[in-house]
């Protein structure tokens, strides 16, 4: 997608709430932005660096609990404190991430999954965080449509920040370093790539962006409970979206997020939650069996097959 097309898309998304979009389309787009944020943020550590985190729900939930806590105990609006949620998630990632990032391959994946489940178990037993009863967050006395617009813009902003961050990392020097780590960490280190610093920065950035989204999501639910704020399903969903869309590009996960969100929505509308999860689980397995490397390679092949106007080649590049 060219730069102009992306800018046009963003402009459309910005004016949409004032162009007659009702509550449902705004809610659907809002959750798509959230999924896109999760996928793009996950991809910074999982895709670029190749460190497969299966515990991102921990960062998401911590962001949500941070804003929930600040609202309940200090009366601060999550629209203002969402960055605090991001910072809490990032600090946690810095502390827990260091031992985890010493592991490679499947060990990292498994340990981050334990991390996600352990954080859920802990919060479930913290009395001052609501424990198993959860936390209630009172929404401001807004009209439903006004509230939807507020959440829409908040999540759109977070998704844009995340996409720009993902793009900056991918196209910048850090992206080159992370790619080198993914290909061969020992070799990268031996030629002077600061592997530990880059991995840590990638994980902290990824966690911070995820926590930011969690902070707003918690407020939208207005009731938070460890069972869905730290849901393992969420961690795997982030992986799935990035996997479907393509892990090498910064924008691929957005495509995955749109596809997954639409399928999710269709299933939940058509059948109940329980049946939806059965079908989703089996469908997920089927998609992985059929397309283990995601949609992007197939789309690229389609594009390659389509006739393309010959590009103007600079004369200096053409060599006999």
């Amino acid at each position, binding site marked *: 997608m060219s730069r102009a097309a992306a800018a046009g898309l963003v402009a459309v998304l910005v004016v949409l709430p004032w162009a007659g979009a009702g509550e449902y389309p705004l809610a659907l787009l809002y959750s798509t932005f959230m999924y896109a944020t999760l996928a793009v943020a996950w991809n910074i550590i999982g895709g670029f660096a190749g460190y497969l985190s299966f515990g991102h729900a921990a960062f998401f939930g911590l962001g949500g609990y941070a804003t929930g806590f600040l609202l309940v105990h200090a009366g601060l609006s999550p629209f203002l404190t969402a960055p605090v949620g991001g910072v809490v998630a990032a600090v946690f990632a810095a502390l827990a991430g260091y031992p985890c990032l010493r*592991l490679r391959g499947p060990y990292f994946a*498994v*340990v981050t999954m334990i991390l996600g489940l*352990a954080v859920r178990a802990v919060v479930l037993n913290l009395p001052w965080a609501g424990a198993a009863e959860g936390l209630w967050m009172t929404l401001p006395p807004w009209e439903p449509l006004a509230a939807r617009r507020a959440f829409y813009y908040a999540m759109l902003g977070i998704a844009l920040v995340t996409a720009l961050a993902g793009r900056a990392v991918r196209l910048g020097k850090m992206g080159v370093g992370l790619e080198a780590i993914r290909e061969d960490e020992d070799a990268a280190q031996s030629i002077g790539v600061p592997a530990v610093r880059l991995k840590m920065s990638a994980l902290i950035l990824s966690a911070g962006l995820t926590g930011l989204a969690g902070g707003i999501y918690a407020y939208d639910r207005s009731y938070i409970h460890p069972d869905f704020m730290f849901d393992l399903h969420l961690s795997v969903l982030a992986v799935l979206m990035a996997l479907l869309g393509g892990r090498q590009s910064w924008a691929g996960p957005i495509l995955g997020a749109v596809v997954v969100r639409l399928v999710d929505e269709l299933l939940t509308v058509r059948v109940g939650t329980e049946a939806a999860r059965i079908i989703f689980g089996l469908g997920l397995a089927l998609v992985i069996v059929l397309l283990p*490397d995601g949609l992007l390679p197939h789309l690229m092949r389609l594009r390659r097959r389509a006739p393309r106007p010959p590009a103007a080649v600079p004369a200096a590049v053409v060599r006999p």
Partner: protein
Amino acid sequence: MLVQALQALATGLLTGSVYALLGAGFSLIWGVAHVINIAHPALAVGAAYAVYALATRGVDPLASLATVVPLFFLLGVGFHEGVIRPAARRAGDLVLVSMVLTFGLAAALENALAAIWGPGPRVVNVAYTGQAIRLGVLALPVPHVAGAGLAAVTITALYLFLHRTFPGKAVRAVWQNRDGAALCAINLRQVTSLTYGLAVASAGVAGVALALIYSFSPATHLTWLVFVFLVVIVGGVGSLVGAVVAGMVVGAVTNLATLVIPFAWAPFLLFASLGILLLWRPTGLFRR
């Protein structure tokens, strides 16, 4: 206090042996096929529900093994041939693909169990529920002893199979060096199928044993998943003995910890100790 601690240690070791069994099957698939089977504990929960269904019709859990074990062996072979193999042949990153794939299956199984039996916890009641064997100052609950006995017999059988029989040695050969084994004319596909069959059957046995000891609900597999992961990380992938020792350690630590902190906090304690372990030995205690 000392008696209490001894009691907690004894029951911890008994339940730990069941964690060891569950972890051993998981570790076997990881080692031989390089697949991380998130659905492993979910299959065990499936076995627990099968035991529950049979027990309500008057079949003793230990007798239901006669159907669970062959059924789960075939299930494991089918799981490999029908699901994992087609995906693995095309996958670029097997760890990623297998984790997402098997998570999908685990989620589907969890919700299917919830659709049939509801999300609430179930308990298998048998004639010896609530009875205990007295051993000096210790009282060992009979279901715990039965579960641990089941685990011990299965692990011993697995050990003897892997070390004394030709097919078992082939499994270990593939475990140690896939290409080398293939060069020695070992049929990788057959060995991998056999491994899945054994591992899933052992998950079935572990499910029966856990059904004797604990109440369970469709979401229980997530709790067991933590224990399975811990057993494999502590024990190291590719070590049956490591899995046994790690299972015992995890069981004992969890139980001893509950003397001081609530049970639900045990995962946190285990994770904290895991973090320290990883800083000290990043690839587990028993890594060759």
